[in-house]
């Protein structure tokens, strides 16, 4: 390849290189806004059919919810990672969000995510649920002590009363106890503060709600 050919080639590849650098720069700069946009779209298109991509799927069909005080464990399917298995809602603050089992970035783009090392509703332990503060869990900023949170699953309809709202560091070891069995405690959290545009947020708004209604899951 002689010098002239090389120079002519440069007219082709240099614009391509700069174009790619330009697109990459724009992607990195605007990715946070794109993520918010996609999450908002997910909020709007709430009634679509599953599967929804990102390896997520749904088993949520609350059609035969028992009215009894107990549910045999054999009737419960422990969801796989990335499975939509419940809905969390609070009428007063206009909260209505799907709950997935697992809390990866992909999951949190589509709804609230339950830490897979925490208990399912009805099991009498700690239920740890995360949601984005710009979309799904934004209504939590208006939540007050005494508000009722409802979790509907395939096997039961659960009600939790908000007993405390705390702002803590994300790594505060006293924020919750995953192994406690004294009471069934819903711990929902999101990044705090809500309005701040910053890098990685280190604080979280933790909502603590105690179960007041819903069937116990029992071993037969």
């Amino acid at each position: 390849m002689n010098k002239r050919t090389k120079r002519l080639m440069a007219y082709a590849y240099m614009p391509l290189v700069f174009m790619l650098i330009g697109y990459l720069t724009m992607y990195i700069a605007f990715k946070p806004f794109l993520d918010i946009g996609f999450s908002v779209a997910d909020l709007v298109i709430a009634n679509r059919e599953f599967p929804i991509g990102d390896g997520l799927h749904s088993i949520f069909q609350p059609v035969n919810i028992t009215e009894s005080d107990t549910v045999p464990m054999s009737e419960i399917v422990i969801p796989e990672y990335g499975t939509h298995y419940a809905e969390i809602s609070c009428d007063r603050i206009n909260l209505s969000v799907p709950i997935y089992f697992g809390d990866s970035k992909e999951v949190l783009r589509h709804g609230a995510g339950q830490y897979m090392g925490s208990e399912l509703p009805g099991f009498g332990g700690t239920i740890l649920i995360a949601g984005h503060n710009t979309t799904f869990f934004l209504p939590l900023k208006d939540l007050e002590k005494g508000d009722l949170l409802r979790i509907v699953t395939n096997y039961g309809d659960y009600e939790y009363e908000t007993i405390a709202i705390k702002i803590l560091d994300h790594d505060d070891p006293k924020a919750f106890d995953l192994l406690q069995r004294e009471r069934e405690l819903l711990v929902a959290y999101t990044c705090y503060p809500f309005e701040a545009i910053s890098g990685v947020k280190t604080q979280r708004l933790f909502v603590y709600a105690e179960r007041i209604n819903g069937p116990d899951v029992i071993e037969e």
Partner: protein
Amino acid sequence: MKKSFATICLVLLLITSTGVNVFAASGISADEQRVLDALSQSVTTQAGVSLTLPSRYISQAKTYMLKDGVDLTASQCDQIIAKTNEAAALIAATSATRLLEIPLDVQSKFVEQAKGAASVIGLTLSYNATTRETTVTDASGSIVATSGSTVKQTGTDFSGTFLIGGLLAVLILASGVYAKKSNLFARNNVDLQ
């Protein structure tokens, strides 16, 4: 070091998951509870410090045991507890004061155990260098456990936007300074006249 620590914790979790699926799920059996108790035990190192496995790993192990089709037999639980005790003995022989201080050679032994344990029932341990997380998946590819932090980032991270914005600002400033030093602005004025 952090990666290795996370791997160690997952190894202990993997050891608990080496049972063959026999019956449908029916909660945590007495034998499985013995395994969870073994995992929860504290280990005293040569430094006289008592170390325990973080609760998030134990709770993930418990969730896995609750799944349909995952039931550990008594003999399997015995084997698991024996392996857990061996692992605990390895830690006890060190002079670590924190789990993060466990020597690399001990950590390597854990990793080898993990791979062997995983292959028995088709569980796979993988490390993601980007997210710095170790993940355990089953034969179907479904995630069984992760070493990621319990509390996730649930706000929009604008670090990339700030970085790009800063770089562009520096670039524009540098271009302006260069243009001025090279009299590019002055030359344009001359041309206009």
